[in-house]
């Protein structure tokens, strides 16, 4: 278990492989969560990334928040909140 975050060690996710330095990684996370918010807004959901803490928080308008470790988990959570998988082909 990681002594800083308390998560058990996990397999790195491919969506987190784009940055090498801490700065790059943080910039990518913030840009990603901004994009997620754009996409989730029409569904009444939102996402948050605190930067100092790992993971993406996905929340709905009813006060429910879930801390998701990877982007893949975040999509699972969106599906849980809305009842259907988020389909990028339908957003156009």
């Amino acid at each position, binding site marked *: 278990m990681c002594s800083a975050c308390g998560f058990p060690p996990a397999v790195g996710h*491919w969506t987190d492989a784009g940055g090498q330095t801490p700065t790059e990684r943080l910039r990518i996370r913030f840009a990603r969560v901004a994009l997620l918010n754009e996409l989730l807004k029409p569904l009444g959901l939102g996402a948050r990334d605190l930067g100092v803490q790992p993971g993406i928080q996905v929340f709905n308008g009813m006060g429910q928040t879930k801390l998701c470790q990877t982007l*893949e988990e975040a*999509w699972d959570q969106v599906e849980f909140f809305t009842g259907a998988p988020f*389909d990028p082909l339908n957003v*156009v």
Partner: protein
Amino acid sequence: MSSEENRLRLTILGGFLGAGKSTWLRHQLFAKTYDQPHVIVNEVASHAVDDTLLKGARCLDVLAGGCVCCDQKEQMIALLHRICNDRSRKQDTPQTRQLVFEMSGVADPGQVLTAIQNDPILNRHIILEEIIVVVDALHGLEQLRTEPLSRRQIEAADQILITKTDSCDAQTLETLLATLRQVNPASERRASVFGVEEPLADASSAQPVQLPDLDGLTEEPLSSWSLNLDEYGTDENSWVGFSVWLSAMLHSHGNHMVRVKGVVRTPGGRLLLQSVRKVMQAPEMLPDLPASGERSSDNTIVLIGRGMNQERIHKSLHHVMTKTAN
């Protein structure tokens, strides 16, 4: 990222029963195509025959008595753990760099990859190099027509090797080629007789055989779409947009996507992405190209799947990507 480059390169050799996998591998070992590979052979029969034929491998392990994608999965994982462990402890010097995994004729390469990918240890030690699927020129068409497994093997292939081309007529071969192209348009097709590469005739004029439905599989042939990310601003923007878009696509349409492959430029470097079915392989950082070098294949992603419309895919990607840039 030295740890990335140091991973074991895995070549998976698949193909239906009797297609000529071992013959091909034996010749490659003789011809030293692979640099001192560690070879794993999987046999469905409880008594292994093939291993006695394979000379020239640096090390050979046999998994006999079952297929690795179902009843022998645990043994396979245990064996791979042992290989990775020995390698990390430097018990094998010089270090093994290449792993060639000859699967049994009834194994599905996709399943094996999923098992490796989902294992937290193997995931960090093994990287897929390519999937080679061997097809018998004489019986390939019949197998495609009747065996769902044979189709799944071909769909997963990066490279299709057609064997025994010397013993079938040109007409059959052309039809087979056209059908293979229809089943897996993105694969590279080559011919080989007893492991020696043969020239392959161009069969662009031949008509593919219509394949019947097999338990819900292949209602329509696969299509491949290529996506270009160059027009979407900086590496950071294109990577953020693309990773969000592709992860959502894999989440919602994963069952229709057979393969994703390409090199994406990210802030951290050039990243090789490849997925087999729903499972994305651990990505690999590639070394930077020289500034003057050819960069044309970077940021072009090939998507192979079925049941999706090209225009919608491009529109959807464009929609997500332009939202990133704002």
